[in-house]
């Protein structure tokens, strides 16, 4: 019998663990670059790596995702290379979008369908992606990630409602981290969990521990199965927390007014350490292996940075080509 952990195959568990470590290493590096005033847009996702990584781990490679602004867990989770992500953020020709998209970031082959800068817009676009997937009949699904902020937008209401009406294969995954930039979520939301809104659309709404990668993997996996079977969308709220301020700019006039104990408390719930402990306990990982994974991640990120910085910029004309398709 293959080793497994809480019903998840050992191989998947290891993949999730390794991916979270890579996401963390990349994030820490980008924060460092940001503090040095390197011209990149990056919203740190430290501490909330689990939802996007575990959810993407539950996909097939031809499934698609519609991500959101926070961090690059979804990017790396779906197979993007940190080097080309950073190259894109820097505006280099070797980026995923030849340097013209910056944080919007997309990749056709990996099924990463771009990231709008308008909060919530993609929740509606995803419904239509779902229409296409339903029509094509290949049992593919789309995951749409978001923070709890856009749950207040009309786009959320219209998008999730349409997905439900048309019973399309979309899974809506909210990373609820208690804050919307500097604003405590409870000041601008009536519900505690976005999943409480699911009855408005008569779809399943589930609230889970967003720092428990395996629970996320299992719950999203179940929602994906429902979607593939034509049973329509699911709304999943993953309760988590980011350790860092919303943004990193040095001149950012400290938007972070969160109580230090609150941050410290959540740091103790680190999703990576938590999975690591369970893996070690279950003999799926040795401390030496864990060490190696971290080293490899660091090395990967070092060479990603080198790659990105050494890459050339595109020429002006190259950035004018894609306004229209011909």
């Amino acid at each position: 019998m293959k080793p497994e952990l809480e019903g998840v195959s050992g191989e998947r568990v290891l993949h999730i663990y390794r991916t979270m470590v890579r996401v963390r290493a990349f994030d820490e590096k980008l924060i460092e670059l940001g503090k040095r005033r390197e011209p990149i847009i990056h919203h740190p996702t430290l501490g909330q790596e689990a939802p996007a990584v575990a959810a993407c781990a539950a996909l097939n490679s031809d499934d698609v995702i519609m991500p959101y602004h926070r961090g690059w867990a979804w990017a790396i989770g779906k197979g993007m290379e940190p080097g080309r992500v950073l190259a894109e953020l820097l505006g280099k020709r070797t980026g995923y979008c030849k340097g013209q998209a910056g944080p919007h970031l997309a990749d056709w082959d990996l099924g990463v369908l771009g990231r709008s800068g308008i909060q919530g817009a993609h929740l509606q676009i995803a419904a239509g992606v779902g229409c296409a997937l339903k029509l094509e009949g290949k049992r593919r699904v789309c995951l749409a990630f978001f923070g709890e902020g856009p749950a207040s937008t009309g786009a959320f209401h219209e998008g999730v409602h349409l997905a439900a009406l048309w019973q399309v294969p979309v899974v809506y995954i909210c990373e609820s981290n208690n804050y919307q930039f500097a604003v405590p979520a409870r000041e601008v939301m009536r519900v505690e969990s976005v999943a409480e809104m699911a009855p408005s659309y008569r779809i399943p709404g589930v609230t889970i521990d967003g720092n428990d990668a395996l629970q996320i993997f299992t719950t999203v996996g179940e929602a994906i199965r429902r979607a593939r079977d034509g049973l329509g969308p699911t709304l999943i709220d993953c309760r988590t927390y980011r350790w860092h301020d919303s943004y990193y700019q040095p001149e950012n006039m400290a938007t972070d007014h969160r109580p230090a104990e609150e941050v410290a408390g959540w740091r103790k719930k680190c999703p990576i350490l938590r999975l690591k402990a369970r893996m070690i306990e279950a003999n799926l990982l040795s401390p030496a292996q864990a060490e190696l994974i971290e080293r490899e991640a660091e090395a990967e990120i070092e060479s990603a940075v080198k790659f990105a910085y050494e890459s050339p910029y595109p020429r002006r004309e190259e950035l004018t080509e894609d306004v229209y398709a011909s």
Partner: protein
Amino acid sequence: MPAERAAAQTAQEMTFNAAIQHALGAEMKRDSRVILFGIGIHHGANFRALAEEFGRERLFQAPIAEQGFTAAALGAALMGYRPVVVIGRGDFLYCAMDSIANEAAKYRYICGGGRFRVPMVIRVNSTGMGGGEGSQHSQSVEATFMHIPGLKIAIPATPADAAGLFRSAVRDDNPVLFFEHRQLKRSKASAPVPLDPDFTVPLGEAAIRRRGRDLTIVTYAYMVQKCLAAAAELAAGGVEAEVIDLRSLLPWDKKTVLDSVARTGRLLVVSEDCKTAGAGAEIAATVAEEGFSSLRAPIRRLCYPDMIVPGTVYGESLFMIDAKEIAAAARGLLGR
């Protein structure tokens, strides 16, 4: 109309609306990736037959959620489908503004690298005045979208152009706004509509509706009729006006306009939208930049005033541009 009969004929007299419906049905038959999004499209008179012919699965009937279903169409387009979004009134485009201007127009660009395409049509079922439906059902909003790179805009004046431009719009790989003026919907033209599935009118090409040497009148949509009536009136007084129907506003046919002005030396732009920062402003500005040396008189714009459309048929009637006004403006330009 059953396809067999259509195939036997080469052209047929039809209303503007029927011409578009015919082209839409033909495109849906031609390409199974053509799908629809809109309110009430399993029931509305224009769509029921399509739902029956092609199956309800291809017509995504939506509740009132213009922002949402326009964005949804974008999503389907990204994945290789060719959606046509039906929007009830031009005014409702403002309800879907983010989906159009921030998302659809930019999505290909922000995804970078050219692998993503957004082949979608936003079909505006009714634009402009004449129904007494109030100021949020009767605006002419086309100029707003001329300012958004990534979009294209078709705005036909005749049934044949409507059919031909509609086909081009559906086959284009970019988001195209397609405006149907409410006063044209049931109109027929003398020229019959070609039924050939390959009959298209290219986006971005104007049509010279009447030749003339004394001045150039540039217009589009419902105002084309009014301008032609004015030109007839002017001709009776010995003034030969050239009337250009732009047919597309983005891209618009600079060359035809500049060539005409090079011949006539005078430009009158007639449009039903509000004057300030309207479609006419772009035409006038371009001619003032690139056709300046031909100009023998000031440019003149004749548009709806900078005000809100009154909510009644009577109120609207007080502000509608008519042939007389156009003719007077033309004579003004010629100093007669």
